């Protein structure tokens, strides 16, 4: 049995299912992120683990103990809130010490442990300050110190970095992971930011409308998204609707708006888990990540195209290329050479192994990455 187990937990508000049949096993010491757009049920799931929201059905087990109906103040979990929820009338030291006081840890030991925790988050010199005298990043670290000082079996992080500016957020991501590794606490983080989830998690749980749609390592989720929603939500992707024309052995030929494209006939197996080889006449959606497209000289590659937009992203160039399949996004590294000009004719190429195939037609959903904010 895993260290933290959620078994078929469901939360219903009236007739609305906020969370449906969520099952998740977290191993001891693991860092797991719940990722999804707002309203997908990830925060409700975290609040059920914390004990702030009652579970409608299903059960939660921590270290073999059923804590489904346990009160929040008996679970002993360390929680970092989105708003940090520091006690504004207490100093940094007293904030961190609060959990230990509640556990009736003797005063001398308390002092040593608070100092150790503040040392860990580099806030030792600020012990006497009040929260409102600290910057956002410092408050965030106080919240973290306050949560880890009680040596909780599980650390819960609710959008811990969303209130920080971009630069600080990136720095805190690495610091958070570093601290989590040092302390070795099992951690569950909720976030809507895929970059944040990917960079620091061992595993990412993608949630969509109250359900888990994929649990995997970050790299696997990016490269092998199980649903079209995930492929759009995590990073950018080109989605191309087509029809399977012919299947011959390992290869299948797909017609994309009349343009024939060769793909691996088995590649339907890892998409949507429906398994089996593709059949002739089947409707499919091909996904190709922008960085997997190669822009070549005009007349070369699989498709002709013309640069219609270009964006400079610092380390990369993002091009929009108009061609027979509509507009494709392509990303090339900024290797110091001159970028392509607008209206320049180019060829678009890719290797068959980078194409992911969704069975079925493309849903006309708005871009989920935009909905997330």
């Amino acid at each position, binding site marked *: 049995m895993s260290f933290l187990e959620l078994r078929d937990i469901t939360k219903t508000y009236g007739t609305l299912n906020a969370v449906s049949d969520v099952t998740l096993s977290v191993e001891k010491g693991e860092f797991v992120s719940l990722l999804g757009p707002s309203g997908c049920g990830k925060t409700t799931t975290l609040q059920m683990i914390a*004990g702030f929201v009652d579970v409608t059905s299903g059960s939660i087990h921590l270290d073999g103990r059923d804590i489904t109906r346990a009160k929040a103040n008996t679970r002993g979990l360390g929680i970092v809130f989105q*708003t940090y929820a520091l006690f504004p009338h207490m100093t940094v030291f007293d904030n961190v010490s609060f959990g230990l006081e509640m556990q009736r840890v003797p005063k001398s030991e308390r002092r040593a442990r608070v100092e150790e925790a503040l040392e860990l988050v580099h806030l030792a010199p600020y012990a006497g300050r009040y929260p*409102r005298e600290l910057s956002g990043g410092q408050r965030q670290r106080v919240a973290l110190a306050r949560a880890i000082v009680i040596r909780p079996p599980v650390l819960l992080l609710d959008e811990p970095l969303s209130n920080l500016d971009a630069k600080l957020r990136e720095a805190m991501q690495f610091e958070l992971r570093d601290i989590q590794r040092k302390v070795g606490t099992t951690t569950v983080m909720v976030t809507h930011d895929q970059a944040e989830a990917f960079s620091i998690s061992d595993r990412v749980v993608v949630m969509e409308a109250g359900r888990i749609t994929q649990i995997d390592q970050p790299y696997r989720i990016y490269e092998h998204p199980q649903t079209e929603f995930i492929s759009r939500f995590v990073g950018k992707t080109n989605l191309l609707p087509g029809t399977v024309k012919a299947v011959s052995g390992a290869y299948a030929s797909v017609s994309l708006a009349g343009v024939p494209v060769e793909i691996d006939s088995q590649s339907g197996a890892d998409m949507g888990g429906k398994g089996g080889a593709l059949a002739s006449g089947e409707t499919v959606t091909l996904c190709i990540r922008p960085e997997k497209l190669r822009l070549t000289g005009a007349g070369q590659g699989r498709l002709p195209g013309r640069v219609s937009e270009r964006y400079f992203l610092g380390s990369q160039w993002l091009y929009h290329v108009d061609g027979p399949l509509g507009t494709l996004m392509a990303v090339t590294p900024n290797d110091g050479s001159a970028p392509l000009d607008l209206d320049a004719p180019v060829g678009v190429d890719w290797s068959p192994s980078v194409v992911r195939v969704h069975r079925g037609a493309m849903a006309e959903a708005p871009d989920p990455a935009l909905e997330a904010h």
Partner: protein
Amino acid sequence: MAAVTSSPSSSAAPGNGRWTPLFLAGPAALLFAALVLTPLVLTALLSFNEFEHATGRTHGFTVGHYLAVLTDEYYLEIFLRTFRVAALATAICVVIGVPEAYILSRMRNPWRSVFLLVVLAPLLVSVVVRAFGWSMLLGPEGPINAGLVALGFGRARMLYSEGTVIVALVHVMLPFMVIPVWTSLQKLDPSIEQAALSFGASRGTAIVRVVAPQILPGILSGSLIVFGLSASAFAIPGLLGGRRLKMVATIVYDQYLSDLNWPMGAAVAVLLLVANLIIMLTYHRVVEGHYRRRLG
């Protein structure tokens, strides 16, 4: 060019900036000065006039009225009683009003709106009407005494006692405690209480250690309002304290309208104002001093 931009480097802008607030606050300040300060100043001047029962008020200058009030035990007792009654009413308002506001803030709509209306409803009825209501309820022929007699207890004399005045004051003043506390509870981040619970605090500990200190400014302003209004209350002590139980506001009234000794009445009123100010400012400084740095 300079007129178009609002850049801080232009020389005209800082001058404008300095006068604008004064200019905007001007009309209200004038109205205030006319309606509040003028009567106050006139009252203060009046209190130094001489008074003879035979001739009435003369324009000579004397501090005699102040000396009379400050040295006469009769007046001192009334002042002490007034502040004792106001302090008790304030304390009871804190004890009832703070939990009431907390419970109210934890309710969900529509119940929250319903009960908020219940709390505020007394404000819609005139104080005089409510005081008469209390005197009917507590009077010798009132329902409470009827009940006591029916149960075999004797009749209790409840009217014209300090207790009755305090009960009625609490009834009137409670909204003034609930509203500021409720406002500061609204500003509270609900996850702060959750945080306290998650670190193993019981609900009671969370309220005492985490919630209460944060709503202290609300309790402070609520008790200042309640104390100030109670100490200068007129209708309730007048109607429920009667002739026997005098309070400062009622003797001011007596001096003006029974004795026709206006300067004496003015002196008592000025002393009430000053004493009230001293008590409230001291209280404010002591309580808020503790929390200034923490809550800002």
